């Protein structure tokens, strides 16, 4: 009998401890969770906006740092109430699949193709598509890819497609194509270390400028438009979603005051803004 008493006692102690911990930690009602693409986090704009939202709505805002891929996955699983991402086709699919309510763009900037100062592959001045073609053909420089299924990675894949290459084929092309599998910031640091080309959003590039020894090589072309949008997750797919508060977050981000702050963000520090406020005149392809 007594040999049973020991594990039994342990079980009781453990379960009461776990229960106690659960009851004090489960006050999830007062927290709103948003999973955000790494480029928005790395620029620091969420650190800047978070306290304002918390003050206005009296709620704790939890910002989860994730690539677009995992952010969408969190959204599907119902682990977050809203997502801020930048990959239009995947956002539309997310909504079509019933996981999101509405896609609301709130900021945009442009992707840049950056590389070493001396531009070894000689792609400066080309269209983004031609530049990718030349990189693959000439192999005169390395390219660091995010390789993490993020929004930036999706765009990179689309650019290879536009340049006439199957993405799987690019992955097999050899040592010059490096898949980092990390967020935008770490990828920039890696590309700088290897003196390689990479595709980056303007915001993250500017906020890392002091630490990255690479320059913009191509910064024009409609294929480089980068739109950030916020999606409230669908409470019909996951009843635990705090839809009302998620909707408040959407309204907060597109409110005139916050739009103005987004447009000004980074000007004093970097001499130019990292994001443009959203305008309905922007034509998304």
């Amino acid at each position: 009998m007594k040999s049973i008493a020991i594990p039994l006692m342990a079980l009781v102690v453990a379960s009461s401890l776990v229960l106690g911990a659960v009851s004090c930690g489960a006050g999830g009602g007062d927290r709103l969770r948003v999973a955000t693409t790494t480029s928005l986090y790395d620029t620091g704009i969420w650190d800047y906006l978070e306290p304002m939202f918390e003050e206005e709505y009296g709620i704790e805002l939890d910002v989860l740092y994730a690539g677009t891929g995992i952010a969408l996955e969190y959204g599907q699983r119902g682990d977050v109430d809203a997502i801020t991402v930048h990959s239009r086709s995947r956002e539309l699919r997310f909504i079509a699949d019933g996981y999101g309510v509405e896609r609301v763009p709130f900021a945009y900037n442009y992707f840049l193709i950056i590389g070493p100062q001396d531009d070894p592959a000689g792609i400066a001045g080309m269209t983004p598509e031609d530049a990718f073609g030349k990189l693959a053909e000439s192999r005169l420089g390395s390219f660091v890819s995010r390789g993490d299924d993020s929004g930036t990675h999706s765009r990179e894949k689309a650019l290879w497609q536009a340049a006439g290459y199957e993405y799987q084929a690019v992955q097999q092309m050899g040592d010059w194509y490096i898949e980092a599998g990390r967020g935008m910031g770490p990828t920039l640091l890696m590309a700088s270390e290897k003196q390689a080309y990479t595709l980056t959003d303007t915001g993250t590039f500017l906020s890392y400028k002091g630490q990255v020894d690479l320059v913009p090589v191509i910064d024009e072309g409609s294929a480089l438009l980068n739109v950030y949008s916020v999606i409230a997750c669908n409470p019909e797919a996951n009843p635990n979603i705090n839809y009302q508060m998620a909707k408040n977050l959407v309204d907060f981000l597109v409110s005139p005051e916050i739009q103005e702050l987004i447009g000004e963000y980074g000007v004093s520090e970097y001499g130019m803004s990292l994001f443009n406020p959203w305008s309905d005149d922007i034509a998304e392809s």
Partner: protein
Amino acid sequence: MEELWQGFVKALQLVVTLDPEVMEVSGRSLAIAAISCSITALLSLPLASLIHFSRFPGKRLLVNVIQTSYSFPTVAVGLFVLVLFSQAGPLGGLGLMFTPVVMVIGQVFLVMPIMLGLTISALSGIDKTIPETAVSLGASPFQTAVITLRHARFAVLTAVIMSFGRAVSEVGLALMVGGNIRGFTRTLTTAISLETSKGDIELSLALGMVLILIALVINITLNRLQQR
């Protein structure tokens, strides 16, 4: 080398000035690891005694399995806990994802094998005449276990120190199920990972040194206890 030195200076600065953010993440790291190790100890000591003192087929295999699990990758444990506690998982209804509570639960899974395995080894190292004498003097199995554990206390404390070390230093699990939320689930290790990804090597090094400092203080304290 210059960077290491700057990191060291910065670590000292952060500690001496009691930098609020550093104090906060350090406290959180410490609390989460301490709670998870206490729970693990409460569960493991009786369980290890039970395994050690009973005879059953497959006992050796069980001990082998426990020892193999010492090297469970933290991200694998993280993934397991994520699948369990995510809203889409069987325990999703508890709403624990991305909270410190789920980090504690994950760490319990992570360090349980170490605490169990090392406690079993500790008990095996004790002269068999001690439990035998206790039994012959009329001790119950529970009393026998307590007496033997008491004799093995140095080795058991080592098990606790090892477990704490693994819990406080792991990052994969904390990132995956905690989410590295500022002011809520950010610990020293996830902060180091974030600051490194931001390129702030100096701050990362400093935070790493703070972590080592905490480990040092804990070990000195436990060693003092051991010597009593």
